[in-house]
């Protein structure tokens, strides 16, 4: 594939210009002769929001480094099909070619998610309790059941250890409202609806500093 092709695919139509304009980091279209493969797309397109190596700096954009490969594939496909929607991500995913998806997923899955540090330690402490035990009264299952110790994830259940708190909280609210509905078995929608605002914020805060041991 020629470099001009890749530029064409991500050229600013379909509202993409608007999105490019609102992104605080901004990025320019690739003007070099780099090969138009997953690494080029990662280094020229994804990097703008998801940062170098898939560890985004802006906490409303998710870290995608170290996510389960199958999970990344599913999300990209869902963005393309409309099963998951995002003003920012939907047009980007739409510009991908189907054959880009697997190598992109493999690339980001092989990176390491770098944890941050919880700001509110008290909230993180409460969040840890919810993560490990859930809430027996309201029927919130413990997050650890699917997302595993240290939030490393398992198969279809994504890594969440080390993820940005605002992104996690936002997703949980979208699950609760049904704005995000591409969860397996409707599990996350059911769980998010049972969680209090405090539980959601606290778990999100706990996840920030969670690292693989």
């Amino acid at each position, binding site marked *: 594939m020629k470099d001009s092709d890749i530029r064409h695919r991500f050229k600013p139509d379909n509202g993409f210009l608007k999105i490019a304009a609102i992104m605080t980091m901004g990025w320019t279209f690739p003007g070099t002769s780099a090969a138009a493969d997953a690494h080029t797309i990662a280094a020229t397109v994804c990097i703008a929001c998801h940062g170098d190596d898939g560890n985004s700096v802006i906490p409303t954009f998710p870290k995608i480094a170290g996510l389960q490969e199958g999970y990344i594939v599913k999300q990209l496909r869902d963005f393309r099909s409309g099963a998951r929607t995002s003003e920012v991500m939907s047009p980007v995913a739409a510009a991908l070619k189907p054959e880009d998806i697997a190598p992109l997923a493999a690339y980001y899955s092989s990176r390491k998610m770098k944890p941050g540090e919880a700001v509110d330690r008290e909230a993180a402490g409460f969040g840890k309790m919810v993560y490990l035990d*859930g809430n*027996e009264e309201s*029927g919130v*299952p*413990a*997050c*650890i*059941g*699917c997302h595993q110790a240290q939030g490393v994830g*398992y*198969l279809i*259940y994504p890594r969440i250890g080390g993820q940005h708190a605002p992104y996690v909280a936002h997703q949980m609210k979208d699950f609760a409202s049904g704005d995000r509905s591409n969860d397996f*078995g*409707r*599990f996350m929608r*059911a769980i998010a609806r049972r969680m209090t605002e405090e539980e959601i914020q606290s778990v999100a805060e706990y996840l920030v500093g969670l690292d693989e041991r």
Partner: protein
Amino acid sequence: MNRFLNPLIVVALWPSVALAQTPVWNQVGEQAKNALQIKGDAARGAAAFVPCQGCHRKDASGRTSGAYPRLSGQHATVLIKQISDFQSGRRINQKMEPFIGEHVLNAFEIADIASYLQGLPISATNGKGPGSGVSRGNELYKKDCVECHGSWGEGNAEKFYPMVAAQHYRYLLRQAQLIRDGDRRNSNPDMVKAIKPYRDSDLEAVADYMSQLAPPDKK
């Protein structure tokens, strides 16, 4: 002609319709019937059990608080029947409902999970009763429970009688209350009849006794 035939059909089908509306407690639904015929695969069951771990724990030991029962070591037939009953609405649990529907588990996965759980070791560190009810509980158990649930609380796989030994006290007590009060719709009517006259203190005593029973030897 149809006009005359229809009432006849209704009359002819009446007994079977009536039967279908009042299933006997251990009459298994389609899903369970299928699952019971499938040879479950424990390795696949371990993967299918992952979403259940959030409540029932990784080792399926449940919660000592009794909020969620221990499932490890339980008879596969019992597990299949109960899951199927939850799916058909014959047994209702709102907390579990979103995680166990037919959109989540098919007959193969039910058989796999049941096979996996049946083979897991039973923890003896279950939530136990206060101990004060053991002797009275022993008396009641010998009188009303032993025939079905066995001398060691081991239950009976063929007859869908659950193992009750070393189950969490609070869970045993809650289920016994639901069964006595007619609120667990998939109960064995013989059991409902047997514990109908039980006072709460009787249920506490017998639950106390069962929670103190050591995990039965696995065959």
